[in-house]
């Protein structure tokens, strides 16, 4: 098991990487799909990534990889009605978890900028056979007794519960960081509101924020 995964992920040569290959990474890591929509619901930016905390390799593994490409967008757009309702009842910018799509176990978290751009994050926990397998996975990691095991346990709790306060806080930090970079984009005189964000620097920044907080 470990040998096969090592063979298929040759690039993960760090210590964390090797630990993650000891456990099944699919058991513990979330897959994320982040998108920015204009106030008129035009997609401006999107990116997919996976858990990086606690030794995750940052690669998204959606449950239905064949359809994820459009299903994620579909799920996100279907939560817009709820978002627009929440928009006028909650004056905060970070609206937290607003919608769930049970068939894909997809959780949607939203952040609204004052000028109406919507930041939407879809998180999908890995496909767990049952809840007991999570605890068994936890047990095995604690048995290892390495330094990575503690962070691993906390990250796995995020994975197990996308609506937990820790997750909300981590997503808040992520959203705030993206917001900062979004404001910088908007300050660019060559950028007009509603234009697709093509800057590779912005993409790298969002990617880095994902690595840092999720």
């Amino acid at each position, binding site marked *: 098991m470990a040998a*096969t*995964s090592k063979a*298929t992920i040759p*690039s*993960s040569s*760090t210590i964390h*990487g090797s630990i993650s290959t000891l456990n*099944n*990474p*699919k058991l513990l890591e979330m897959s994320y*799909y982040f998108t920015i929509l204009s*106030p008129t619901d035009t*997609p401006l*930016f*999107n*990116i*997919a*990534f996976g858990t*990086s905390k606690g030794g995750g390799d*940052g*690669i*998204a*593994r959606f449950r239905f*990889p064949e359809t*994820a*490409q459009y299903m994620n967008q579909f799920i996100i757009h279907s939560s817009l009605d709820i978002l627009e309702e929440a*928009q*006028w*009842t909650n*004056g*905060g*910018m970070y609206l937290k978890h607003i919608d769930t799509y049970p068939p894909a176990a997809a959780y949607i978290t939203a952040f*609204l*900028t*004052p*000028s*109406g751009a919507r930041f939407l994050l879809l998180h999908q926990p890995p496909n767990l056979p049952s809840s007991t397998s999570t605890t068994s996975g936890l047990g095995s990691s604690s048995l290892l007794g390495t330094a990575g095991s503690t962070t691993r346990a906390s990250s796995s709790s995020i994975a197990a519960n996308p609506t937990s306060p820790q997750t909300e806080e981590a997503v808040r930090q992520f959203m*705030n960081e993206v*917001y*900062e*970079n*979004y*404001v*910088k*984009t*908007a*300050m*660019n005189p060559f950028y*007009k*509101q509603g234009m697709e964000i*093509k*800057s*590779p*620097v*912005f*993409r*790298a920044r969002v*990617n*880095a924020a994902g*690595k840092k907080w999720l």
Partner: protein
Amino acid sequence: MAVPPRHATMQSISNGNTAQGNDRPPTQQSQQQSQQSPGLRVPSNRKTIYDRHLNRTRNAELSRASFAFLFGEMVTYAQRRVTGIQDLEKRLNEQGYPLGLRLLDLLFYRSTSTSSSALSSSSTSSSPPNRPLRIITLLHLIHGPLWRLLFGRAADALEHSVSAETANEYMITDNDPMVNTYISAPRDMNMLNCAAYVAGIIEGVCDGCGFETKVSAHNQPTELWPSRTVFLVRFGDPVMEREKVLERAGIK
């Protein structure tokens, strides 16, 4: 088990040439940034706009003269092939509008990062300020924080139309608009008010917050304040209807 990651194809929807980026371990991230974008020109000091701080200008001030000259040129530019005063004011308004949209995000960013003080004067917590949901909150935002961000002081008055027929009209008064400091309109254009540019900024802010509005600038000189300007803010009907719904729901 570890199938080739699906996300590579997903990313390619929006940005084809950066799609391979994520497969590499994070240590290569920085090099790859510079490699992956041959079309991007980075300044010689390697600092893009994303490396700059948005709060930097809190103490740095701009020269009033350079603004006056710049604004003067903007007015001259707007005057080209213009059909009349209203057309000129419309053009100035359109120049201000995108600025309002941008300022809105910047205003909130600055007040979140400097924690509370600027916007949420009432609440003592350091939580970020709320997006305005009601008209009054929005107008206070414009009258106070926005005016301070732009002109270094609050506006001079905020009033609501007394007539029931024009309940959607609000007035923001500036006794001495900075944009008009050095401007004297010729006599045959005495209705013109170049603060139409500021009206455009207000319109951008309101629209950005989801309040459809028309804003116009009007001369209301007094003995003491010869360039006193009233910004007439007229909210659209959908906004007024939503306002009623929100009031019934008890949302502040």
